[in-house]
């Protein structure tokens, strides 16, 4: 064939593929490989670091290890708030393969209505897909077993072990302790809470809020290596959780129990304090709420019942009720009168009231001849109308303000209110009106514009009985808190604080003697405690004017508020108890409640601490204002706070 002429030659050529076409094929191969090379270059050289991050995010899952919150103890180390282990179930939406199959199975296994799961998913629609959404808290062991048994079918279920708050039942000391809850939007916006992240559990009131930074500890985390189904295949490392610090409160559980019992079924507050140090021994507010309901899922019903309760169960009335103090204010009046030398010689013939500036001011009784000695036990209004008129509003305001009225006490609890101590300045500033002398008369008996909190009253009156030594009230022992924390707390909760007001010994001792008479023969005689040096002052504060009362036609809510501030012993008391019983009708009623707490305190002191000072009726002679050992205590407190 090869030797054939042209046709064969041509034929021979056609028996081969043209080399040009094969060269073209080579170029095509090179082109394809260059494109693939470029693709690999783009991913592996240019994009490597970015894809490495994605690969790590794929396989490493950070699982939080929640720090157990610090526990709370009473002053004697008895537990008030504990934690209990609890397991919550979360849903990883990205892992759900077929909602129509998985969700009904989950609903059955976790005993949640299917509609509720769907509603939860809908609620989190806007959240990023990788964010686990809570399905159920406090799951039972058999629900946990269900999740374990369905690891393969339901990889989207994840459990998280955590420590939950266990509060005393039935709202015991609820206002003081507070509660925890998920951090709120407002808190997240506040730079002060910059270290909180959404979903964090934080103290939302009471000690839980004030000392949150100490109690919360620091959450740790575990880095798990997971496969594509989220199954753990290894561990990388972990950051241990630092448990929150336990705190010892100044509360005495025994007294708190008596106080809780005394206030049961009433509306109001009771606060007991050691005036030497400002340590709060008991604090009760009624009505109360169950903090346990707040720490788990708050049900709508429970929340509504709290919101619609006209007596505001969430309010800590010991520091948040601002009400007219009524006759308890007469102690402050007496001190002002004596210190200004305007009460010593005042004699009033009480005939059921007196007329000032053309207006008749009533007294509840015809007391007859009244002077500074029997004005307190009799609680004669006529005497104090006259004294108020003699002193004038600004002198009264000066002493009241000195004693901490119209300002926060500085207790280490959130949202304390200041109350009001009116003066000419105050009225000009708030109402842009001059003060009328007639208004002073009502202030003299603790009515009118003056409002106080039970804690303010306890501190002020025990301050008088302590010769002018006022302490900053607190519920956590100062030495429990690191200095920088204590400073932060003191700064956040500023107020009247620690101070000593100069007053003449014979003046304040005259007042304490008169207060002793109050529980013996005076307005609180019914609360008399045999063998205990128990003194006090009642207050019955009208909640509306006589005219308004007549219009309203009576009823429980128009009854006056019953106040009582009691102490033991009479001079430099070891305990002061202030009781506010809203619509309690008569100060005497509150005196009986305070007496229960004082009685419990004294009995405990006798049994445990052999403190006989309280029981003994003191010498009539005036003693030094502050006993040396107390003075030493005061000093240590002052430096610590």
């Amino acid at each position, binding site marked *: 064939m*090869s030797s054939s002429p042209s046709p064969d030659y041509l*034929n021979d*050529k*056609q*028996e*081969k*593929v043209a*080399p040009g*076409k*094969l060269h*073209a*094929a*080579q170029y*095509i*191969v*090179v082109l*394809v*490989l260059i*494109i*693939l*090379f470029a*693709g*690999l*270059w*783009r*991913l*592996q*050289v240019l*994009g*490597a*670091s*970015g*894809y*490495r991050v*994605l*690969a*790590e995010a*794929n*396989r490493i899952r950070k699982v939080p290890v929640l720090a157990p919150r610090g526990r709370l103890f009473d002053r004697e180390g008895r537990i008030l708030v504990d934690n209990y282990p609890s397991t919550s179930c979360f849903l990883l939406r*990205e892992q759900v393969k077929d909602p129509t199959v998985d969700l009904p199975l989950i609903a059955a296994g976790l005993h949640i209505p299917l509609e509720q799961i769907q509603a939860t998913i809908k609620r989190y629609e806007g959240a990023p897909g990788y964010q686990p959404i809570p399905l159920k808290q406090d799951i039972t062991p058999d629900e946990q077993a269900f999740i374990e048994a369905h690891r393969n079918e339901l990889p989207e279920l994840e459990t998280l072990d955590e420590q939950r708050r266990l509060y005393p039942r039935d709202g015991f000391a609820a206002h003081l302790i507070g509660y925890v809850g998920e951090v709120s939007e407002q808190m997240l916006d506040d730079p002060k809470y910059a270290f909180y992240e959404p979903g964090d559990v934080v103290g939302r009131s009471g000690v839980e809020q004030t000392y949150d930074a100490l109690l919360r500890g620091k959450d740790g985390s575990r880095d798990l*290596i*997971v*496969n*594509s*189904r989220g199954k753990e*295949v290894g561990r990388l490392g972990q950051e241990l959780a630092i448990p929150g610090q336990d705190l010892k409160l100044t509360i005495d559980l025994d007294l708190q129990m008596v106080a809780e019992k005394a206030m049961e079924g009433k509306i109001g507050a009771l606060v007991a304090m050691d005036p030497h140090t400002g340590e709060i021994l008991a604090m009760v507010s009624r009505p109360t709420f169950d903090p346990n309901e707040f720490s788990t899922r708050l049900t709508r019903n429970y929340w509504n019942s709290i919101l619609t309760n006209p007596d505001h169960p969430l309010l800590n009335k010991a520091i948040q009720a601002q009400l007219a103090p009524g006759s308890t204010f007469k102690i402050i009046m007496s001190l002002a009168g004596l210190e200004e030398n305007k009460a010593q010689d005042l004699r009033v013939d009480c005939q059921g009231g007196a007329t000032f500036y053309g207006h008749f001011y009533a007294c509840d009784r015809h007391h007859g001849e009244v002077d500074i000695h029997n004005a307190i036990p009799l609680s004669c209004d006529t005497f104090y109308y006259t004294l108020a008129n003699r002193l004038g509003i600004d002198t009264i305001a000066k002493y009241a303000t000195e004693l901490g009225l119209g300002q926060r006490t500085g207790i280490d609890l959130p949202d304390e209110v200041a109350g009001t101590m009116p003066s000419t300045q105050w009225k000009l500033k708030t109402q842009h009106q001059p003060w009328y002398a007639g208004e002073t008369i009502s202030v003299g008996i603790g009515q009118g514009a003056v409002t106080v909190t039970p804690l303010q009253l306890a501190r002020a009156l025990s301050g008088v009985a302590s010769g002018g030594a006022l302490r900053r009230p607190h519920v956590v022992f100062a030495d429990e808190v690191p200095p920088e924390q204590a400073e932060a707390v003191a700064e956040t909760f500023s107020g009247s604080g620690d101070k000593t007001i100069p007053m003449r010994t014979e003046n304040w001792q005259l007042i304490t003697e008169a207060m002793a008479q109050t529980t013996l023969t005076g307005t609180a005689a019914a609360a008399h405690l045999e063998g205990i040096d128990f003194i006090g002052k009642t207050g019955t504060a009208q909640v509306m004017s006589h005219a308004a009362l007549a219009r309203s036609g009576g009823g429980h809510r128009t009854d006056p508020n019953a106040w009582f501030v009691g102490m033991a012993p009479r001079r430099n008391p070891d305990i002061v108890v202030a009781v506010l019983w809203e619509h309690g009708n008569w100060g005497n009623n509150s005196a009986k409640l305070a007496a229960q707490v004082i009685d419990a305190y004294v009995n405990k002191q006798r049994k445990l601490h052999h403190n006989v000072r309280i029981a003994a009726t003191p010498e009539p002679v005036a003693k030094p204002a502050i006993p040396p050992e107390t003075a030493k205590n005061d000093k240590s407190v002052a430096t610590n706070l």
Partner: protein
Amino acid sequence: MFRLSSFRDFDWPLLGMVLMLSVISVLEIKSATLHTRFHGFDHKQIGFLVIGLVLMFLMSLIDYHQLIDIAPYAYGVGVASLVIVMLFGTRVLGGKRWISFHGAHFQPSEWIKLVLIVVIARYFWGLAGRDLTWGDIGKSFAIVCVPMAFVLKQPDLGTALTYLPILICGLFLGGIRFKQAAIILLVIGVVGGAAWKTGKVLKPYQKARLTSFMDPDNDPRGSGYQIRQSLIAVGSGGIWGKGANKGTQTQGDFLPIPYTDFIFAAFCEEHGFVGAMGVLLLYFLILMRLIQNAQTAADLPGSFLIMGVVAVMVFQIAVNIGMVVGLMPVTGIPLPLMSYGGSSILFSFLALGIVMNVRMRRFVN
């Protein structure tokens, strides 16, 4: 016909490079199945390779002209086997692609590739280099499209598509004119576009797979998932890779089927850009060697046979690696000589057997 001395003309360098790729393949399959229930697939792959090598030698012994002679019968048997699959095939993962026979599974669509290469070579040899008429072109289309339609019906889009490069290669080497090619492309463009719109030819999941590669983040848990995980695997491998058996995407089971379709992604993750370049270089050398063999072939059908093999290989490499690096849609086309799988390996080695066959007989004339 049987001349022992011809084994001296066997393409040993080509076989050497192919075996290097095979070793890489086995090691990567071992790594990718290490902690899975597919553990041991590397051993099965070795078995396939051994069978493949034997078949390659056997294939090289039969003169390729005889293969071309029996091509029409092979074509008939092939199409018949596709009909059998359609009627009695085993359904696996939603596709009816397999014939079970005494515990062994066969995927006839793979063999059809081989048959088509031979049939197309025979067809264009018959035309003997004259200018192609529209009738010639139509017939070549018919030869390829009949089995393709059956495979599409299975449905196995990926394998069906690998038949096209055989046809294109045949037309190109057979002498199609530029004008004819342009007209065909235009018609395919219009008809294809219309078919896409009506949605009757492709199933929705196929369409989703074909489009999701352009924006895998759009649906990271759906059809974009595979591409996304593949990109992460390849990219995170970086220049040097994470080391053998240490790819987090591969070992953590994030990468889908890392021993078959996505084996190159697994390899890139563990051996990095450098390793990937090595594999690309091997493919380059193999393909160049094949084309060189096509040039030295004794006659037209010899060149056609080798170039048919080249066309299928280039297409599969381009589509598979293109898919792995996010340039191509997910079509389920294995990477030749790398992906795990008996049918794929046996096809590759039988095809190489044909190449050897042609090379050994290059001095016949």
